[in-house]
């Protein structure tokens, strides 16, 4: 059974990446929509820490596969889209999402250089990449059909998705605006 340890590591890290990114996106949407009251600095710190945890989990998720003896993937296979043979669309989507989430996450530390307004515009793409990463998880994930996986993912994905919907729904005209 030990020959599957790296594979299990990759699957576990993928689950952590999905849940942590969903929690981070949800918290980010709550803060952006001013739907949560509290100390802004602390909420930002939680959001940042969840993003860092997501990035670490993504690195482990991909990196562990390189050490898996059976699948025999190279570093290039797990870092360059459309290089591997297995499920090229879903795998490539996952690789692209991984790079994008890492780049978008780390851009926070360069926002002074990028410019805050430009960084904010860039940061909004995180939600789009997060949605694509959910597609990667559901489309290719080994455990995607399992009830426990769907329940665990749903607990964090559904609230974040609802917040996203609320944020992008057109606001209804009020009496005052007539």
């Amino acid at each position, binding site marked *: 059974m030990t020959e599957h340890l790296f594979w299990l590591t990759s699957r*576990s890290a993928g*689950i952590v990446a999905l849940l942590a990114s969903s929690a981070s996106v949800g918290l980010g949407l709550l803060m952006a929509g001013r739907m949560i009251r509290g100390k802004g600095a602390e909420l930002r710190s939680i959001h*940042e820490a969840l993003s860092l*945890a997501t990035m670490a989990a993504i690195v482990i998720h991909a990196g562990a596969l390189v050490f898996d003896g059976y699948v025999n993937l190279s570093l290039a296979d797990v870092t360059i889209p459309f290089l591997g043979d297995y499920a090229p669309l879903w*795998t490539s989507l*996952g690789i692209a999402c991984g790079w994008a989430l890492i780049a978008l996450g780390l851009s926070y530390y360069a926002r002074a250089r990028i410019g805050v307004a430009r960084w904010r515009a860039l940061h909004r793409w995180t939600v789009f990449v997060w949605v694509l990463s959910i597609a990667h998880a559901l489309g290719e994930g080994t*455990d995607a059909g399992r009830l426990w996986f769907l329940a665990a993912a749903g607990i964090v994905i559904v609230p974040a998705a609802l917040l996203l919907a609320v944020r992008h729904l057109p606001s209804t005209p009020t009496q005052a605006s007539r």
Partner: protein
Amino acid sequence: MTPPPPHPALLARRARVHRIRARVAAGATALFLAAFSGLYVQMATGHDPVLGTSTAQVASATTSSSSTSSSTSSTSTRDSEPMTTAAS
């Protein structure tokens, strides 16, 4: 010349941020260990979606003193199907 000591409020904020990061890191690690343990148990009990019942058959084959026919059935689905690169 030594720099002036940081303001106590700044020190308190740094400590808070450090505490939050440590808690999130601990939570993520706990989540990883829980997922790993769950997947391991799932695999060991033969309920893995890819490995199927093969691992349980390996366990039963090693504990029983039966013939080679049971051990030949221990080849995992993963060995016959190289399609397991995916995690979530």
